[in-house]
């Protein structure tokens, strides 16, 4: 770990200023310190924001939920309002990491965690995300945990969060504070696809800090499910995960919001999948059609080819569950 100057921000302005001047923000630290110990990340300055007043979760005037960026994953998962009204978010949080990590990891930090790509983590290996232009060693290497959607020839890393997958399905927005004031954006706008610049992962500007996540009001009469498939029964990253928020209108699907983990460089969502489902009567054929759409551009990299059938199977099972459709005999 490289030496750094440590400063504790007493207020948000000091924090955004420090970040604008090149400091790296530390909150829970569960991923940043992990990476700093390996010198995958080597900031010269750290600004500690843990004592800022961003620890509250409260209803917005419009009936949504404003989650402070420093709310821990544990507190968010255990929040009674979240458990009752946004259960997919609790479920996703509880499917991730461990009790100890969730007690430390924060909402903002969870969104901004880096990929778990083995080659990103090993400074002796080429990695365009860590060292732009050095190459992607994962594409031709061991890539069991890598992306099948949204990757580029420069980077095939996945985003490892469970929480963010549920948030994406819930149409969450992040509130961002910078020197120029506050702005809000959806997760689709927060995250960037790797393209030719996999080292640029978000659209946050230099001095911007995530201050909150805003959930819209709870979906009405919707079934919410988070399903995670992994290599051991606990404490493993998703091979595939599906967050589903689906509402029925009689025998037909009124609204479907589906997000996916383990498949792409960001929590994945595909509007065409949802449009294919909405207004339709659930059936295995329909679910196959939705899976076809989701996976139309899917590309395996060798060791992760299995994610294509696994994603199909998992999506179909989740759709059966939320629409209470029997599997064909």
């Amino acid at each position, binding site marked *: 770990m490289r030496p750094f100057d440590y400063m504790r921000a007493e207020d948000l302005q000091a924090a955004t200023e420090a970040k604008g001047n090149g400091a790296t923000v530390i909150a829970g630290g569960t991923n940043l310190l992990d990476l700093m110990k390996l010198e995958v990340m080597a900031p010269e300055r750290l600004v500690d924001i843990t004592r800022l007043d961003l620890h509250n979760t409260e209803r917005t005037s419009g009936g949504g939920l404003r989650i402070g960026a420093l709310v821990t994953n544990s507190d968010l998962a255990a929040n009674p309002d979240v458990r009752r009204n946004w259960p997919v978010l609790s479920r996703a949080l509880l499917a991730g990491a461990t009790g*100890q990590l969730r007690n*430390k990891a924060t909402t903002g930090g969870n969104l901004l965690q880096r990929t778990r790509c083995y080659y990103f983590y090993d400074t002796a290996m080429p990695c365009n995300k860590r060292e732009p232009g050095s190459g992607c060693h994962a594409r031709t290497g061991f890539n069991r945990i890598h992306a099948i959607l949204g990757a580029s020839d420069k980077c095939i890393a996945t985003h490892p969060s469970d929480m963010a997958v549920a948030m994406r399905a819930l149409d969450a927005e992040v509130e961002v504070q910078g020197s120029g004031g506050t702005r809000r954006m959806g997760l689709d706008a927060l995250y960037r696809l790797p393209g030719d610049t996999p080292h640029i992962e978000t659209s946050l500007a230099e001095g911007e800090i995530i201050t909150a996540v805003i959930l819209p009001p709870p979906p009405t009469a919707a079934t919410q499910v988070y399903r995670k498939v992994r290599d051991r029964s606990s*404490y493993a990253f998703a091979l595939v995960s599906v967050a589903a928020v689906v509402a029925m209108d009689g025998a037909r699907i009124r609204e479907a919001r589906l997000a996916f983990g383990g498949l792409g460089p960001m929590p994945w969502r595909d509007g065409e999948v949802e449009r294919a489902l909405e207004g339709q009567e659930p059936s295995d054929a329909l679910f196959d059609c939705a899976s076809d759409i989701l996976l139309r551009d899917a590309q395996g990299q060798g060791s992760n080819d299995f994610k294509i059938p696994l994603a199909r199977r998992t999506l179909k099972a989740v759709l059966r569950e939320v629409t209470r459709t029997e599997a064909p005999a």
Partner: protein
Amino acid sequence: MQTTLKINGESWTLDVDPRTSLLDALRHHLDLTGTKKGCDHGQCGACTIILNGRRINSCLTLAVMHDGDEITTIEGLGEPGRLNPMQEAFVRHDGYQCGYCTPGQIMSATGMLDEVSQGWPSHVSASLEGDVPLSREEVAERMSGNLCRCSAYPGIVRAIRETAGEVSE
């Protein structure tokens, strides 16, 4: 950097390199070596301590971030001759073999039971609301952040459930 930590009820002021993890501050600077380093990356749980009432991995935080914070380590629970009930249950149920992950298991179990008493659900809870029955499965899921390569898991689960009053032996 000067930092004051309240550990097991005692105040310690130390002057550390800002890079010092809370774990290394305990082990290298305060000679509190009961807290173990198994991976240094939050992947094994051997370094689990209780920070301001919550179990965390002490390897993944900096000592300087915890000025004024309250920390409980394994040394604060009990010592030979005066073990606490959880420690005694671990001995009775052989919830360890080599002993290296054990302090982390016990600290984690201690923090975990507090989480259960607050009604926190887990990944395996059938419902997100209501009381949590401390089944074998609930304990196992909530303790999955503490690896044990000797694989003393059956004894660990029994020791915890007995301490929580779920089963009597």
